[in-house]
């Protein structure tokens, strides 16, 4: 997988039992944002800064002749500030030589130097990966203030614990999160999230096709050529849910949580509170079978409500290829909408939440169907690229059959990425052709992540390409006219998990009400900058910012100046500026959370 919807009138009333923190919290008056009709795209340009930034990584897909399904799955990319210097670093996942040809390849961690350039610090950090890599996510699972890194692979996954000194330690076995508990080998997307709201990040790991060296390697597909096989040939494998025991270990609770699905074909996964009940739910997008929406029952278990909620299938009743999941309040109505990408010819899918736990697919009405039928969409999702306060859509595109270059005169293996501007009237406009040289060159796009790597308040994009170098797309702003204003928040949990995953930030500025939920995972095998960046349009002041923490705590800030980067710490009354260190030696980490490594059962 948006007919012009009337704007939802939402009355969000703070519950009487909610803990109040910091400033007193009144009713966050939540009538919907004003929609004034279609707004033209802003002319923002993106430039390819990959080489200029010093990124020399190139993905090695490792095929030996016709690619297999594994070799076309392609890489993810994840963004996180591993050294705490305030600048987002990037981790690229790589393939491997599976045929004994002696070809070396490794993943790559690029440290942001704070000056627009990056340095490959993989060896020093000790995070090369050790198998055919697929995806990655960052998450401070032990609440020590240093984001840790989880890499999904074909084979056992890896959990790298961040030692806080620029190095990592492989703690996979100790933590018990290799991901092969049910025999799954072909892993895919993953996400950290705190499903039981105990303040510690849990981990969900996706499983994809049951593909092995003894499986059928190639098929003659609809393009009448020998190419990689679709997943239907192999069947699926189970995902795993790991509960954080708070002592550096995890427990597989998949069955106990009633989330065990033996035949899943998961590619992407996203955790978010879709029904606004304060508990994170789980979207699991599957390739060629129905998607799962696991509603959090608040008791450690989940229920799959995909069909009843309207997101298991497209509105035609079709399954999706579903490479990407992205959740975002693209209508500024206080509810998370959903984007899922799909195969060439199928058109991508956009859902609007009805606010009652159900969704309507609005892809056609939004105007994305026609354009996205022409491409094969992978990673990306919602982000506000022009800072007008409305979430736009970026999608990395690329086919999965290299052979199509020879069998089709219209379709190419490498494709141009897509950028859609949110026109605010329920429609999106394709602006790919007019958004700069970052959209000039076709690639076999796969994972994508959003980040503000130079901390200028404008969101950039990094794309991982299959068998090619990545793309670092710098947001150069509008070609003409003034730049829109922004405000950026980094959330630090104290009672809630340190990364604040699951926290909701809502703000009101210039007549627009926006909402972001801090979440990992999503996109395709990737993870974006966890900070919440809000575009403010012409507003120089944010009238109200409300944070709802997973712990239940709420904070409200008023009259926040725009064009700044703030840290919001749970329980602290004042906003703090984010600290940006330019030291190449790396800044000192934030003070470790006193909760780190407490014995199990204590807080």
């Amino acid at each position: 997988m948006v007919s012009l919807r009337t704007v939802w009138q939402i009355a969000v009333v703070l519950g009487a039992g909610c803990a109040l923190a910091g400033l007193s919290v009144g009713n966050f008056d939540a009538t919907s944002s004003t929609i004034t009709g279609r707004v033209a795209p802003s002319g923002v340009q993106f430039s390819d800064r990959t080489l200029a930034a010093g990124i020399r990584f190139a993905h090695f897909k490792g095929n030996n002749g016709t690619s297999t399904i594994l070799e076309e799955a392609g890489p993810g990319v994840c963004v996180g500030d591993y050294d705490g210097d305030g600048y987002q670093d990037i981790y690229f996942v790589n393939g491997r030589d599976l045929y004994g040809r002696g070809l070396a390849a490794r993943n790559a961690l690029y440290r942001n130097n704070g000056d627009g350039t990056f340095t490959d610090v993989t060896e020093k950090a000790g995070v090369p990966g050790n198998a055919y890599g697929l995806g990655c996510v960052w998450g401070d699972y032990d609440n020590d203030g240093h984001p840790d890194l989880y890499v999904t692979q074909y084979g056992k996954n890896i959990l790298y614990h961040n030692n806080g000194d620029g190095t990592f330690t492989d703690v996979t076995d100790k933590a018990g999160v290799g991901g092969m508990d049910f025999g799954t080998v072909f892993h895919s997307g993953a996400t950290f999230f705190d499903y039981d709201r105990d303040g510690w990040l849990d981990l969900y790991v996706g499983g994809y096709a049951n593909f092995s060296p003894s499986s059928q390697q190639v098929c003659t597909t609809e393009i009448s050529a020998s190419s990689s096989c679709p997943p239907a040939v192999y069947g699926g494998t189970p995902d795993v849910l790991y509960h954080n025991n708070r002592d550096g270990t995890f427990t597989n609770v998949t069955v106990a949580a009633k989330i065990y699905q033996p035949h899943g074909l998961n590619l992407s996964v996203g955790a978010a509170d879709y029904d606004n009940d304060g508990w994170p739910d789980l979207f699991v997008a599957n390739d060629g079978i129905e998607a799962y929406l696991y509603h959090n029952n608040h008791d450690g278990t989940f229920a799959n409500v995909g069909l009843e909620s309207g997101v298991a299938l497209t509105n035609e009743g079709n399954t999706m290829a579903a490479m990407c999941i992205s959740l975002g309040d693209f209508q500024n109505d206080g509810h998370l909408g959903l984007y899922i990408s799909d195969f060439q010819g199928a058109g991508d899918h956009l859902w609007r939440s009805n606010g009652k736990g159900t969704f309507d697919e609005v892809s056609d009405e939004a105007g994305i169907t026609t354009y996205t039928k022409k491409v094969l969409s992978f990673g990306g999702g919602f982000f506000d690229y022009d800072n007008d306060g409305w979430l736009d859509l970026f999608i990395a595109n690329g086919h999965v059959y290299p052979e199509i270059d020879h069998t089709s005169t219209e379709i190419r293996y490498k494709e141009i990425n897509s950028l859609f501007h949110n026109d605010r009237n329920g429609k999106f406009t394709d602006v790919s052709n007019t958004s700069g040289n970052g959209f000039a060159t076709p690639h076999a796009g796969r994972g994508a992540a959003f980040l503000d790597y130079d901390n200028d308040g404008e969101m950039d994009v990094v794309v991982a390409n299959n068998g090619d170098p990545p793309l670092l797309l710098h947001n150069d702003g509008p070609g003409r006219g003034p730049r829109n204003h922004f405000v950026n928040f980094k959330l630090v949990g104290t009672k809630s998990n340190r990364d604040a995953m699951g926290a909701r930030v809502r703000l009101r500025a210039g007549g627009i009400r926006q909402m972001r939920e801090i979440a990992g995972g999503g996109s395709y095998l990737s993870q974006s900058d966890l900070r919440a960046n809000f575009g403010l349009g012409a507003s120089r002041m944010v009238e109200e910012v409300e944070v709802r923490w997973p712990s239940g705590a709420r904070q409200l800030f008023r009259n926040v100046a725009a064009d700044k980067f703030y840290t919001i710490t749970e329980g602290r009354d004042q906003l703090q500026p984010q600290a940006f260190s330019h030291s190449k030696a790396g800044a000192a980490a934030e003070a470790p959370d006193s909760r780190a490594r407490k014995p199990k059962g204590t807080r």
Partner: protein
Amino acid sequence: MFNFFMRGTRLTPRFLRASPAVLIIAPLLLALPLRGLQNPTPARLPATTVSDTDLRAAFQRAQQALASKDYPAAERRFTEFLKLDPNSAAAYSNLGVVYMRTNRIAKAIPVFEKARELDPQMVGIDLNLGLAYYRSRGFEKAIPYFAKVVEAQPDSLQARYLLGVSYFTMRDYDNAVKVLEPLQEQEKDDVDYLFVMGVAYGQVKREDDSVKTFAKLIGAGGDTPHMHLLLGKAYLDLYENGKAEDELQKAVAGDANLPYVHYDLGVLYQRLGAGDKAAAEFDKEIKISPGEPWSYQNRGTLWLEAGDANHAIPMFQAALKIDGKLPDSLAGLGKAYYRQGNLDKAVSYLKSAISLEPDSANFHYQLGQAYLKLHKADDARKEFALQQTLQTQARKKQADQLEGKLPVPAQ
């Protein structure tokens, strides 16, 4: 001999991962079905309380009206006659002929069936029924009737031809070849016949025969718009989109009003995601062939994809006015009304679609969604359960095909 006109394509189930449109060779419409209708047979007048003379006279008057193509009078008179003699197979059959000739195929079928019930040995009744089902696109139902005629009269060219085409349309290419092959000499210059045989040979893996037949087709067809249309259609089926477009555009250049060429171009552009171009082609085809439902149907689908249910509805309605048994148009109306929030109508049309295509997982899913919105949770669950079952079966079939355990469906 017979002019075949290419008909439209149907979308395959979208669980096929790649392009959602797999062409089925169009049902080929016989341009002259009416000529094939058996002439009214002389009545064997049963005994009634009305005198035989009066009955005979009444019958003859009705027959004269039919013979002079005064169809309203013929219909009136045969209908009146049947009040006098309700067991007259001949009168039913002739009334069926009237309906066929006035393009009311749906009404013709039950009266032909009645005639057959009353007199199974009536000359021509099987052919008439076959023609009626054929014209109403009930090819599966037409087959047994045509087969009976061919069995009884192996030299019946029309019955054999239509039987072969019916098999072809039902993708039973083996039988299509078996039935049509004996006509090779007679139809060696008929481009439509050669097209059908060329495709059928290809589908049954008689590649050499296919190549030879297409070579004859090109020789027989020459540089005519119709020929280019046939070639364009063939390339469309083979997913040679560039070549398809070339040939279809040549057909247009030769005759911009050639029926079905714009339809095929529309299908091509729809497949390529060029919605605007596809819409323009379907609009042209509607003007040229207003009596064919497919362009309306596809145009309705494009309107839905553009998010415009208001424009989609009249398109699907127009398609259904021509052929009330198009499941995709019924489902299209269901979807359009669903998007408008008119859920009762959505349910009604989706149920109608399901009655025609009960194995469509998609239709069951859409109906389930409509029930959910109507807070009919139990009904929704039933539909979702059906959808899951059907989808699982389809998925298994697809997997078997990809692994070579099952033949891949012909495109």
